[in-house]
């Protein structure tokens, strides 16, 4: 049971990190990429560290795992936020045109 939970955590975490990498490659802008990194990567590394915690024999080592989880969850969004701040100040990646207020019929994409 513990092993099954561990493998589930590991596979989900690795898949989320791969998702973050795909987002970094495919998304068009710096802000979108920082968004992908901040969310998917944080949850992925959190799940992988939980899998390592389930696999440890000495439960006293879990304190370092808790410290690592706390640190990763605290620092990855902070770094992404800093990158977003610099990007917003320098690059102005948002479209400068105001949104049109005309009532256009919305086409629902399939």
């Amino acid at each position, binding site marked *: 049971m513990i092993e099954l939970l561990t493998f589930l955590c590991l596979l989900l975490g*690795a898949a989320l990190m791969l998702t973050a990498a795909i987002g*970094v*490659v495919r998304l068009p802008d710096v802000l979108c*990429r*920082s968004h992908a990194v901040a969310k998917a990567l944080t949850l992925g590394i959190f799940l992988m560290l939980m899998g390592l915690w389930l696999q*440890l024999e000495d439960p006293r080592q879990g304190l370092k795992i808790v410290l*690592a989880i706390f640190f990763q969850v605290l620092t990855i969004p902070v770094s992404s936020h800093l990158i977003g701040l610099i990007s917003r100040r*320098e690059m102005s990646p948002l479209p400068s045109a105001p949104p049109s207020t005309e009532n256009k019929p919305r086409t629902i994409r399939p």
Partner: protein
Amino acid sequence: MIAIVIPIAFAMLFLAILLGLYRLARGPTVLDRVLAFDLITTCAVGMIILLSIQWQTPLFLELILVFALLGFLTTVAFVGHLRQTRQPPGPPSTPSSPASPGAP
């Protein structure tokens, strides 16, 4: 079971590092490269976790902490450096060919 799952996860992280290296080589701006480096560092932490499970040793926990700390420290130092050196805002450099967003 453990011989099946760990190579799969390791291959996923390897592919993630390759994609991060692609973005690091072809990033239009410096910030893309910093972001890709952050991703690569975190994927390296995941690889250390997998090795620690494979070898059944708790010796790598300090290594995990040090790697996480160094990744964050490099990002913060680089952003601070950019913030100091790029006070006059340059010409807005938009990405040349924005990729098509994926299907909703």
